[in-house]
C-alpha cells in the first residue's frame, strides 16, 4: 500500500473512531445526540453535556497522548539507533512517579493540578540529569544515554519505593492508580498544554526529519552529511522528554505505545519519509482512542487503567506480528 493511501485510510479511521468513541460509554448516547452536540450544542441537555464536557476532551486527550508518545518513541529509537528505546527506558516516567510521591509525602495532596505539576517536575529532573550525563561526549554517547537512562530509572524507582514504604496505605493505592494511567483528568481548561506541545514537537520533527533520519546511518556518516550529531541528538532528547513529561503529567503512566507503535508502523512504511512520521503519530492516536473506549466500556460502573490495556493489547499484537513476519520470511 502506498504511503498516501495509508495516511488517507488512517485519517478516515481516526474520524470514524472519534465519532464512535463519543457514543460509547457508561451512558448510552445516540448518533443523533452526538451530531447535535457537535453542531448545535445545548448546555441544558444532559446527554450533550456528557459528550461535550466529558467525552470530547477525553477522546481528544487520548488521541494527543497516543500521538505524542508514539512520536517520542520514534524520536528516541531513531537518535539512539536502538529499536527498544522508549520514553520509559530513560527514567522520565520514573522521575514523574517520584515527583508525585514526593508531593504525597510532603503535602499529602493526592489529586488535582498539583499532581500533574509534581509529575512534570520529576520528569524534568530525570531529563536534566540525563542531558548532563550525555552532553559533551563525542563517542559512546548513545551507550552512555541508554545506560544512564536505565540507571536513573532504577534510582528514581528505588526512591519512590522507599517513600511509598513510609507512606500510609491510602496514599499507596492512590499513587498506584495514578501510575496505571487514565484519561479521566481530561478537561477543556488544560487541553491546550498537551495539544500545543504535541503539535509543536510534530512541526519541529517534520522540519528536522532529514538530519534526524541521517543519525540512523551512524554518527560518523551523519557527520559527513553535515549534521551536527550531538546538537541534534540532545535537542531531540529534550523534545521527547518534554513530550513524555507533559503527557505523563496529564495521563499518568501509559507504557508500550512509544515502544511499539513506531515498530508496527515500520512494518508498513519507511520512517524516513514525512508520511512515515505522520503515520506514526496518527497510529498512536488511533490506538489510544480505542484503548480509552475499552477502558470505559469493558466493565459496568468501573474504568480499567489505560496502562493495563495498552500493555496487554500491544504485546499480543506485537507477538502476532513477529510470528507473521517469521512465517513470511
Amino acid at each position, binding site marked *: 500500500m502506498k504511503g498516501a493511501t495509508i495516511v488517507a485510510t488512517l485519517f478516515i479511521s481516526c474520524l470514524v473512531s472519534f465519532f464512535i468513541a463519543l457514543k460509547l460509554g457508561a451512558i448510552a448516547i445516540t448518533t443523533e445526540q452526538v451530531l447535535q452536540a457537535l453542531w448545535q450544542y445545548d448546555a441544558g441537555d444532559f446527554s450533550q453535556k456528557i459528550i461535550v464536557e466529558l467525552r470530547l476532551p477525553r477522546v481528544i486527550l487520548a488521541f494527543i497522548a497516543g500521538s505524542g508518545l508514539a512520536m517520542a518513541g520514534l524520536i528516541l529509537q531513531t537518535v539512539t539507533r536502538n529499536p527498544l528505546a522508549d520514553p520509559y527506558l530513560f527514567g522520565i516516567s520514573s522521575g514523574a512517579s517520584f515527583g508525585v510521591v514526593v508531593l504525597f509525602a510532603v503535602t499529602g495532596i493526592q489529586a488535582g493540578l498539583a499532581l500533574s505539576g509534581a509529575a512534570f517536575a520529576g520528569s524534568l529532573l530525570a531529563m536534566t540529569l540525563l542531558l548532563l550525563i550525555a552532553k559533551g561526549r563525542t563517542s559512546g554517547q548513545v551507550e552512555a544515554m541508554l545506560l544512564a537512562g536505565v540507571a536513573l530509572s532504577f534510582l528514581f524507582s528505588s526512591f519512590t519505593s522507599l517513600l511509598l514504604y513510609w507512606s500510609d496505605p491510602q496514599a499507596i493505592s492512590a499513587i498506584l492508580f495514578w501510575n496505571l494511567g487514565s484519561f479521566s483528568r481530561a478537561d477543556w481548561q488544560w487541553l491546550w498544554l498537551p495539544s500545543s506541545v504535541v503539535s509543536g514537537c510534530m512541526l519541529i520533527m517534520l522540519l528536522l526529519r532529514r538530519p534526524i*533520519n541521517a543519525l540512523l*546511518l551512524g554518527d560518523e*556518516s551523519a*557527520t559527513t*552529511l*553535515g549534521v551536527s550529531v550531538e546538537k541534534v541528538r540532545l535537542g531531540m532528547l529534550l523534545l521527547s522528554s518534554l513530550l513524555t513529561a507533559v503527557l505523563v503529567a496529564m495521563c499518568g503512566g501509559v507504557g508500550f505505545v512509544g515502544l511499539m507503535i513506531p515498530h508496527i508502523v515500520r*512494518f508498513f512504511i519507511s520512517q*524516513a519519509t514525512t508520511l512515515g512520521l505522520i503515520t506514526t503519530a496518527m497510529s498512536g492516536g488511533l490506538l489510544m482512542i480505542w484503548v480509552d473506549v475499552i477502558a470505559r466500556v469493558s466493565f459496568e460502573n468501573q474504568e480499567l487503567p489505560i496502562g493495563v490495556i495498552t500493555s496487554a493489547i500491544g504485546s499480543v499484537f506485537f507477538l502476532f506480528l513477529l510470528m507473521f513476519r517469521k512465517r513470511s520470511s
Partner: protein
Amino acid sequence: MDDRGSNRSPVIEVCNLDLKIAEHHILNKIDFTIQAGNFVGLIGPNGAGKSSLLRCLYRYVTPSAGRITFFGKSLFDYPRQEYAKQVAVVLQEIPDQFNLTVFDVVAMGVLPHKTLFSSVNQQDKTHIFNAIDKVGLNDKAQQPFSHLSGGEKQRALIARAIVQQPTFLIMDEPTSHLDVKYQIQIMELAKSLNITVLASFHDLNLAGALCDEILVLQQGELVAQGVPIDVLTAQLLADVYDVRASVVPVPCPYEGVVQVPHIRYHYGCKS
C-alpha cells in the same frame, strides 16, 4: 558530476598533523598533499592510524596539532554543511535496522544541499534515481537496505556519495569483507566518478593497480608516499608489514603503458 577537480591544484594539504587521544599518539607529524583528480590509496598495517587520519579529514575528530587545508582554506573554517557539499565519505557503518529502503539511504545524499524548509523535488528524485542506476541497483531501489549483499550495500553507499555531488571522495576500507568480483566492481565504480579520491586499502595489489599515488602509514607516521611502483617495494613490505614478498612490475590494467607492482607473498618463510 561536478568537475571542479579537473585542474591540477591541491585539494587537500596536510601539514604537521598530530592526533593524540588520552595521551596516546595516534598520528605523528603527518605531511602530504593530494592533487586534484588523483586516486590516492592509504595503506598500512592494522592500528597504523589509517581510519584516524581519514576521520581528521572528514572532520569527525579534531587534530591535536597541525593544519589541514581544503582548496587552500582551513578545513575547520568551512561551515559543516558547506564541507559536506564538497566532500562525500563512504564508511563501513551500515544501517541494518529500521527498514530503510535503498532509495531512503541514497536520498540522504541530498541533505547537505537542503535547508530545513526545502523539500526533495522532482529534479532531486531524478538525480537520486540516476545515481542508483549508475551503481546498477535500479531493480532494488524500493527494497530494504538490510536485504542487500555486502557488495550491493557498498554500491548503494557510493550512490549516496554521488548524490552529494562531491569534489572529493573519502572511502574507509571500501572493499573489506567483499568477494574479489565486488572489490573490483566497487573500485572501478569509484574510479569512474573522475573526482579526487582517497581510499584506505588492505589489499595491496588492488591499491597498486588502481591508485595514482599511495600513502603508507606505520604506527601513526607517514613512512612513504609516491606512485605505486616506487612505493610498494619488497623492502617496504618487509619493514612495514613484516612479510617477505617479491614485487614484479606488470602493465596497469587500466593504462597499459604504466607499470604497476604485482606482489607475490612468500608463505611459510619468515623474513
